């Protein structure tokens, strides 16, 4: 396999909380068109790394590039504009917005999101609204939440909120989706459906970078796996290779 320029690359990024180096000079890359798994014991720094990539935390050292562009230091709303989005591990749905509205707000560059357009209403705004509304309903159908489109997001069950997270992330028209434990708490039937949805989307050119603890999911879904421990990658390769890696076993089982 020829090594193309990776879609996402981090170079020696570091983030500390108090005295803890949550992510410690972490360098890794995600190739375009793959589903790349990110595994590691609790506290390995996986979620912190994700939050740096999407701009919620600024890295203290190092750089992050997406395609050819450096994105570290950009505010989160500009990074999502460039096509990187994350679905949160603990759902962060907008509670007192409806399920459908949660998707509509995620669609990028809505021409109606300024006070002048809000007051004087333009036809273009409402045509756009109509268009993304259809899109949002299709997306909800994909994750089987369409009967609940008008319910408040806070009224969904835990598993349904995970699905909403995924649908909302896809609504931003991303190139790269960071999934933080997307199927934890989702029932097995729906998990299967979700995973096949991911494969379909990957076939359509989307790239996924996924934190997942369920090794079955990692083994069957991921093309590449990166294992993290104490803030930096310790192994990388195909799922089988990583699973056999001694350093990985040691990290999980303790030395």
């Amino acid at each position: 396999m020829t090594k193309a320029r990776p879609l996402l690359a981090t170079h020696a990024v570091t983030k500390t909380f108090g005295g803890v180096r949550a992510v410690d000079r972490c360098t890794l890359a995600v190739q375009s068109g793959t589903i790349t798994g990110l595994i590691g014991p609790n506290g390995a720094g996986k979620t912190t790394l994700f939050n740096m990539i999407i701009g919620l935390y600024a890295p203290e050292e190092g750089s992050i590039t997406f395609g050819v562009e450096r994105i570290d230091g950009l505010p989160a709303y500009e990074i999502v504009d460039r096509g990187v989005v994350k679905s949160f591990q603990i759902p962060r749905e907008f509670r007192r917005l409806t399920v459908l509205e949660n998707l509509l707000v995620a669609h990028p560059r809505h021409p109606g999101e300024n006070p002048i357009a809000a007051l004087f209403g333009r036809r273009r705004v409402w045509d756009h609204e109509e268009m993304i509304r259809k899109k949002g309903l299709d997306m909800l159908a994909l994750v089987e939440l369409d009967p609940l489109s008008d319910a408040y997001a806070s009224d969904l069950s835990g598993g349904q909120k995970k699905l909403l997270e995924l649908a909302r992330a896809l609504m931003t028209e991303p190139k790269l989706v960071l999934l933080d434990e997307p199927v934890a708490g989702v029932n097995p039937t729906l998990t299967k459906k979700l995973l096949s949805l991911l494969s379909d989307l990957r076939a359509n050119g989307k790239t996924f970078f996924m934190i997942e603890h369920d090794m079955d999911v990692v083994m069957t879904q991921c093309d590449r796996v990166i294992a993290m421990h104490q803030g930096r990658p310790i192994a990388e390769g195909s799922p089988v290779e990583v699973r056999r890696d001694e350093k990985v076993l040691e990290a999980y089982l303790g030395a």
Partner: protein
Amino acid sequence: MAELTGVVADVSRFLAYFAIWGILAIALNMQLGQAGLYNAGIVGFWGIGAYAAAMVVTDPVAAGIATPGHWGIDQSVFPRIAGVSTSFAFGVVVAGIAAAVLAFFIAIPTLRLRADYFAIATLGLGEITMRVFVKNLQGVTGGVYGFGGIPRPFEFGFETYKTELSYFGLVAVALLVIFLAVERMSRSPWGRALRTVREDEDAAQAFGKDTFFLKLQSFVFGAFLMGVSGALFAFWLRGVFPPENQFTPQDTFTVWVMVIIGGMGNNRGVLLGAWVFLFLEYVTVRLPSWIDIPQAFAIKIFYFRLIAIGVILILIILFRPQGLLPEKKHVAKRPRWVLNW
């Protein structure tokens, strides 16, 4: 007949007062109910609006032995339309802009603060505005004396009921226009984006919202409305006076109580909240003149309203925290009229 005109004047005066507070409640609802901004400095924006409008509609007064003097504009520069000076229209607009500019400069350093810290900062800055600046700018604002002699757009001399009734009509139109505009904006995609900031600011950022800019828009627009309300209040009162006489933090908390009682996020609700609050005030003030109440009690009854408000507030927070009229689902809908541009 004399009695009837007296009642008309009294009721009109009260209803205009209600409309002025209604605008304040809607303005706070734009900031707090939509974008989740804990503005505790309402009185600063209201007061700046009142003073700015008062200066636009009065002639300047030079400092004298007994008066500190205040700024003003020579009223002859304003053209009159059908006998009504256009200075009032300018006054309202200038008041809104003055409050919006103040909000802009307050927002730049403070909008990064989260909920309760933002409340403390705005409370402090509102007080600084009124007590440090407005109260001490002797030759500009009338200093500790403030100034009176502010006219109304429509004056009918001794026919007080006409003056009061026409002013109520004017303020009612202002309230209606503001209500419809804010409702429309709340239902728009912009209102929806503001609510994402209210619900979860980090998530809003991660899903593409420039949350600082959205909060700034909401805060400045809300402050503009507070300034407009201040202008209408200055005309209503025919004078502007610095804190402790007017524009104390109690006014800020009154608006908060109105919004909490009525229903945060619901513009009809906050108007109902304003009504509940002010109607109690009106009734307790007028009751002794309507029915026979023992003298000792008659003086105190006004203060019983504070107890009543306190009890109502506690009951609502305990049993109906979403307010009398809770927020409705504001699903964005194409309005009846849209411009094609």
